[in-house]
Every structure is written in structure tokens, then in C-alpha cells.
């Protein structure tokens, strides 16, 4: 790791103030991704602001009947929360499908949203990567692209977003609550939070410099049958090749969000609208416009098959 200075913030206001006043400052929460990247010198912050003690670790119901999840709530706590298990089961399921027990004990809600891609060329500092070094090129497009994105990509980047949790958050129409250096607060729908790469793949989300996520808010529960199905190269502790989060209501209407396919949690209105037509129609709508490589084109069929499994799970539970 490159040397850095370290401070522990005592308040949210202090944290955002010092983030904007110290050159090269980064927030650290769970640290499970940031420290990994710092060891590889992919991330080289000059200053770390520890935000673990700001009281952002509570889960509260909102006036509108939704749920406000503090940015620092650990993945384990969120998956085990009584309300989440009962009313937002797809989120519990997605959380426990991700990482390992040790990592979930440390990883936070906001940190999970902000984790970087696991594209092998992003991690290999000897290779070109537009996300790591803007303008250096993309080694993945003609390289080992098997795990990478098939839709929402650009000629500059085909990296996939690795999160399971974010896929469920997208399905549930979460919003990301943010505070800026001047103390101004805003809320961004998760649909608009993660950005597609275009020709600026190094800009991954809507956060402005120095901004801090304080919580993630879920709307009131939508009921229905919740399913999260993840397909990966081993049974546990691996990133998704394809994952599907789904909620079905009684008359067969459904909504779907996908992991492993795109640079952000992937959801399209046309796929939701195709729910009654069954898995192949939903897959076709979800992947309309896909631009796979020869090595990851299999994800299209795998998406249809994963959806078929999701529809069967739904029948079993209904």
C-alpha cells in the first residue's frame, strides 16, 4: 500500500467537510474492497476518513411505510433484519448469495453499492484498462471476457457490476440518500445512481466529489413472491455469471432485475411487462440490444434458463 494519513470522523458533517478539504481523501467503511485495491495500488488514496463511528448503522421504518437502511449497516445485519426477511425477502436472499460470511460481517450497505468491478483487466495493473487508467484502452473486449457484461457496455468498457445486493435494491426501487460537503442532502433513485460506461467508464456513479451516502431507502413493501436465483462457477463464494431478482404478484405480474449481465444492476420495463408471457419472453426483452463477445454470448441462453428456474420456484412457492 502507498502511505496515507488516517482520521476517524466524529460526525457526518465533519466527514464530508474533511473529504472536500483534504486532497486525495477517501472514506473507508468496511474496507473489504478498498483495502484489497489499495494493496494492489489500483486505489492510492492520500488520506482515509474512517466513517465507521457515525451512527449510520440503524434500520428504521420511514413515515411512508418504507425502510431506511443506514449506510453502515453490515450485509449480515441487513440480511438478518426481521423486517427485511419478512417484507423484502429478495434483499435478504441476494445478500446471503454474495461474498462469504466473513466479508458480509464487514461489508456495508453503501460500500456494497460502491464496490468496483472484478474485471480481470481492471485488477491487472500491467494491462490497459479505461476504468483504471482513462484512455489506455480496454484489454477485456478481445480478452478473457467470459464473466463480463453483455449489455449496457461500450467500446471503452465491458466490465460488469459485481453486486448481488444492488440487484435486489434495483428491483425494489431503492433510493440512495446522499450528503454533500456543504451539508446539502439529496436522494437519487438507484436506477440513476450507477452509470453506464459510455466513453467515461472511470465514472461509475452519480456521487460528486466529497459526497457521502448516509442511507438507502426502500419504498413500502410490495408483497408478492420473492425469488433470487444466482448462477455461478461454484456453489458458493463466487460472483454471478447471471443472477435474477424477481417479485411476482398473485395474478402473474412480475418485476425482474439482473446481475452479472451489465455495468449496473439491469432492469428494463419491457422485461417486467413480459412477465405473463413467461421466461423466454422476459429474457428476450431484458437482453434486447445486447452486444456479447464470443466468450460471453452464453449468458443470453443462461439468462433464459435462469429465468425458467425462477418461474418454477415461483410456482413452487405460490
Amino acid at each position, binding site marked *: 500500500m502507498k502511505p496515507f494519513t488516517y482520521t476517524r470522523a466524529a460526525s457526518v458533517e465533519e466527514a464530508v467537510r474533511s473529504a472536500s478539504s483534504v486532497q486525495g481523501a477517501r472514506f473507508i467503511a468496511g474496507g473489504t474492497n478498498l483495502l484489497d485495491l489499495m494493496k494492489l495500488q489500483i486505489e492510492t488514496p492520500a488520506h482515509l476518513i474512517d466513517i465507521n463511528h457515525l451512527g449510520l448503522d440503524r434500520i428504521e421504518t420511514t413515515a411512508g411505510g418504507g425502510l431506511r437502511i443506514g449506510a453502515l449497516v453490515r450485509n449480515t445485519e441487513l440480511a438478518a433484519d426481521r423486517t427485511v426477511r419478512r417484507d423484502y425477502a429478495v434483499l435478504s436472499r441476494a445478500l446471503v448469495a454474495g461474498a462469504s460470511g466473513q466479508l458480509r460481517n*464487514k461489508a456495508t450497505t453503501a460500500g456494497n453499492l460502491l464496490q468496483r468491478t472484478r474485471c480481470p483487466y481492471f485488477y491487472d495493473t500491467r494491462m490497459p484498462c479505461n476504468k483504471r487508467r482513462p484512455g489506455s484502452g480496454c484489454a477485456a473486449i478481445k480478452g478473457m471476457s467470459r464473466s463480463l457484461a453483455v449489455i449496457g457496455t461500450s467500446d471503452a468498457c465491458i466490465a460488469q457490476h459485481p453486486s448481488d445486493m444492488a440487484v435486489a435494491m434495483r428491483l425494489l426501487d431503492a433510493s440512495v440518500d446522499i450528503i454533500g460537503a456543504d451539508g446539502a442532502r439529496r436522494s437519487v433513485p438507484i436506477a440513476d445512481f450507477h452509470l453506464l460506461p459510455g466513453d467515461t467508464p472511470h465514472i461509475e456513479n452519480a456521487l460528486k466529489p466529497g459526497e457521502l451516502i448516509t442511507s438507502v431507502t426502500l419504498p413500502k413493501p410490495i408483497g408478492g413472491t420473492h425469488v433470487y436465483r444466482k448462477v455461478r462457477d461454484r456453489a458458493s463464494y463466487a460472483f454471478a455469471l447471471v443472477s435474477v431478482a424477481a417479485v411476482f404478484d398473485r395474478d402473474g405480474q412480475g418485476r425482474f432485475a439482473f446481475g452479472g449481465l451489465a455495468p449496473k444492476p439491469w432492469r428494463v420495463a419491457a422485461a417486467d411487462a413480459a412477465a405473463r408471457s413467461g421466461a423466454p419472453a422476459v429474457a428476450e426483452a431484458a437482453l434486447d440490444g445486447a452486444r456479447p463477445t464470443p466468450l460471453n454470448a452464453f449468458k443470453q441462453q443462461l439468462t433464459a434458463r435462469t429465468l425458467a428456474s425462477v418461474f418454477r420456484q415461483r410456482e413452487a412457492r405460490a
Partner: protein
Amino acid sequence: MVAVELNVNGREAHLQLDPRTTLLDTLREHLHLTGTKKGCDHGQCGACTVIVEGRRINSCLTLAVMHQGDKVTTIEGLGTPERLHPMQRAFVTHDGYQCGYCTPGQICSAVAVLEEIEAGIPSHATDDLEKVAFSDAEVRERMSGNICRCAAYPNIIAAIRDVAGEDKA
């Protein structure tokens, strides 16, 4: 250098550390508790698993300075050669290791896994999110963050099952 105070295995430790020092390197290089092992140093193998404030974590993926005042339990704090922790004894009884390098992490993880099941924390193997109960499938899933290159997995499961009391059935 920054001052860091930890409670490791019931003992207060007062340290002066480079902020870059991971909890793992603090335990091994500064406190000379070499039971905790460095495998991948990237959170992928689980050899460095310790229990911090009651939760198992990868000690390689956290900075000591982030754990000011925290209680840390390592393999040395679970038991001693004279007074083994039940999980340590079960690993011996069931031959839950071959080379032994991953074993301290396996045992710390296993002790925490049984507490997580007891606390009703669900896993990917949990069928009904409201009913969390011990099963071999639960243990396999929950232990997936601890890799054993010697593949002692069947005996590791047997050891954990023994401690969980399921062997009596």
C-alpha cells in the same frame, strides 16, 4: 505512526503502528500471535479469520487502526494445548486438517458459524428465512469463505457437527 489499543484474547495491547498495518500483520508481526495465518492476503482464502467484537472477519482486509478498543479473539484465545476449545478438540478427533495451515481460520470461523446459526442469521442454504437451523448444508455454505487446499472438508464438517451436538442423533 499512530497509537492503537486493542484487547486481544483478553489482554490489552498498546501499539504504535503505521496506519497501513492490517489487523493480520498486527497480530503476527507486532503481537507475535502467529496462529493466525496469512494465505492470500486478499480476503479470498479465510486463513486469517479472527473474531472481532463477536463477529468473524478476514483480518487481512481491515486496518488495525480501524479497530481502536475492539475485542479480538484469535486461535490462541480460544484454547491452549492443555485446555483445548471444544472445536479444537473436535478437529483433532475428526482429523479435520492435513497440513494445518488453514486450520486456525477454519476453527475461528466454525466457532462463529455455530453462533450465527444460534442467532438465527440466515444463509444462502436457508430454505425458510424464518427458520434457521443446523444442517450439513448450512455448514458447507457458511464455511465457503475458508479454503482448504488439502480438502479436509468432510472431516471439518464432521468436527463442526460434533460440536453442534448433531452427532448424538
